[in-house]
């Protein structure tokens, strides 16, 4: 029998609602897959304990039977990126400094999912504090790309994407500050949405760059992503940047029709640095949309290369402030025998944070310091305004912008961390979307010669998720979900 984990989240949800599959069976399938595949993939920092998962499954089953839980996600197993607080379940941000942190509350997005009947099977690995593009900066070890274990899954939501691709769970939540949902989705052959800033509450999301962070869905297809986004999005008074949207009915975008849709293709996204195989694959996907009636046009977006330096100034500045709270007093790691209070702070932070996190905290402290604030921080904020204007101009002409999610497919393990700027350049197509607060989606559109997945990115204007979902859905109707090669070959063994 094929595993229940090979179904999409909504297919499994339908079978559960119809009584064809019990919530416990779904949970058991996920637990079994995790047990079998974790030694090879390592998607999780913490796998939920069996008893807790099964108890929760039975609770959800009862609510379904009573008729009080009708969500298409009820009883479907989910992985949560380990930067979202889960009451009673360890939440580490993949950092030593939070190695033993047990949150006393749950992030709002996760609360919303639980109200829809989600069964959490574990906390997914990530780059430490979401700072990285490969999941290699995790204190708890690397996650491997299920398509090829010698390659990274991308990052920072690498564990979430790998868990979905390896079919250890039905879907996952990730977070995206500069591409951290879209880039690993591309590398792992799954679909991921970064919503418009303010759509999903950040309450309980451990902050990295607060003006850029957004939680979003990662799943096998666009249908799942739309359903999940509908479940997690809400206006939340506890997050002062949360927005009361007029419309949360994202699933209405699941329409197979792109006739007359105007799609802009930025020339600046297809120039130097883009892998030719990625380019060919993304343009072929664009062609499919054109054949279905969309109007494609090339244009110059401009300013693309300035997004990365602006991002690293802004994100690092916010990180240096956000991570000031980790001081060894109220929670987390504390250095031993550190002497006085200030020595304890310093020693705790120096031992508790990894190299990439320290690098960004220092850069952030520097650009905010007196004498440099105007030249670096304000300059970056002015650049951000220019980037937003460039997108505004583009969306006067186009419904959507189409390009690659990343310039290459997944790099090999160990190849990226040595040269930070080169690694940062890998975010070139995703980062400006966060600066401008826009929604974006990554959709699998083929494999390269090494058999690694390629992702097409669609970018919408603020609050235009439905257009994104419509175009991505129409595209996905032309191709079936490609399961990761290791699963097809049975390379995970022990099953």
């Amino acid at each position, binding site marked *: 029998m094929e595993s229940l984990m090979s179904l999409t989240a909504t297919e499994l949800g339908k079978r559960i609602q119809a009584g064809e599959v019990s919530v416990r069976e779904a949970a058991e399938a996920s637990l079994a897959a995790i047990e079998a595949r974790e030694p090879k993939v390592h998607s999780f920092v913490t796998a939920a304990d069996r008893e807790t998962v099964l108890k929760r499954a039975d609770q959800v089953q009862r609510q379904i039977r009573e008729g009080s839980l009708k969500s298409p996600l009820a009883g479907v197993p989910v992985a949560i990126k380990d930067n979202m607080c889960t009451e009673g379940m360890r939440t580490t941000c993949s950092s030593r400094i939070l190695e033993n942190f047990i949150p006393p509350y749950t992030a709002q997005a996760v609360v919303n999912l639980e109200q829809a009947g989600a069964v959490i099977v574990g906390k997914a690995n990530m780059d430490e504090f979401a700072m990285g593009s490969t999941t290699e900066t995790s204190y708890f070890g690397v996650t491997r790309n299920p398509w090829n274990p010698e390659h990274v899954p991308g990052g920072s939501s690498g564990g979430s994407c790998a868990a979905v691709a390896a079919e250890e769970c039905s879907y996952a939540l990730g977070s995206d500050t500069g591409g951290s949902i879209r880039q690993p989705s591309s590398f792992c052959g799954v679909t991921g949405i970064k919503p418009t800033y303010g759509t999903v509450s950040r309450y309980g999301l451990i902050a990295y760059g607060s003006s850029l962070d957004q939680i979003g869905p990662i799943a096998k297809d666009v249908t799942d992503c739309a359903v999940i986004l509908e479940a997690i999005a809400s206006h939340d008074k506890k997050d002062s940047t949360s927005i009361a949207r007029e419309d949360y009915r994202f699933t209405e975008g699941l329409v197979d029709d792109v006739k007359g849709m105007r799609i802009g293709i930025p020339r600046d996204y297809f120039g130097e640095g883009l892998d030719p195989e990625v380019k060919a694959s993304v343009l072929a996907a664009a062609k499919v949309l054109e054949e279905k009636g969309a109007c494609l046009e090339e244009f110059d977006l401009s300013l693309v290369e300035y997004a990365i330096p602006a991002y690293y100034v802004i994100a690092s500045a916010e990180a240096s402030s956000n991570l000031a709270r980790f001081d060894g007093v109220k929670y987390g790691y504390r250095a031993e025998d550190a002497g006085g209070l200030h020595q304890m702070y310093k020693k705790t932070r120096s031992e508790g944070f990894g190299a990439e996190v320290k690098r960004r905290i220092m850069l952030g402290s520097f650009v905010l310091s007196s004498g440099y604030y105007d030249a670096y921080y304000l300059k970056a904020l002015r650049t951000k*305004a220019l980037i937003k204007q460039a997108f505004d101009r583009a969306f006067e002409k186009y419904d959507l912008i189409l390009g690659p999610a990343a310039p290459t497919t997944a790099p090999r393990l160990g190849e990226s961390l040595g040269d930070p700027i080169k690694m940062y350049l890998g975010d070139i197509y995703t980062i400006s979307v966060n600066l401008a607060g826009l929604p974006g989606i990554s959709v699998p559109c083929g494999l390269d010669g090494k058999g690694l997945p390629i992702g097409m990115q669609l970018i919408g204007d603020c609050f235009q998720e439905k257009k994104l979902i419509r175009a991505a859905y129409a595209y996905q109707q032309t191709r079936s979900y490609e399961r990761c090669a290791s699963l097809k070959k049975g390379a995970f063994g022990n099953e």
Partner: protein
Amino acid sequence: MAKNVITDEVIEYVGILAKLELSDEEKERAKADMAGMLDYIDMLGELDTSQVEPMSHVFPVSNVFREDVVENGDNREAMLANAPEREEGCYKVPRTFE
């Protein structure tokens, strides 16, 4: 592009701001890393932003106020359970002055 040089004094100062204590080896690495990043960031100098206001937030949001009433329950024990050291219901820290 002007090459940035990060001096020992600057890295020392940044260490104080960031509350980080770096080994000599880490300091050298940090100096090189930061100089490299700043060289790269200096690219922003190519843009004329003299007529542009800094944009901290993409939407025109103002401060969000609410009544100052307690809504959450007593989480005292769950909060203190995470403390590295505690005593009599308080967070315990090393001696702050002699």
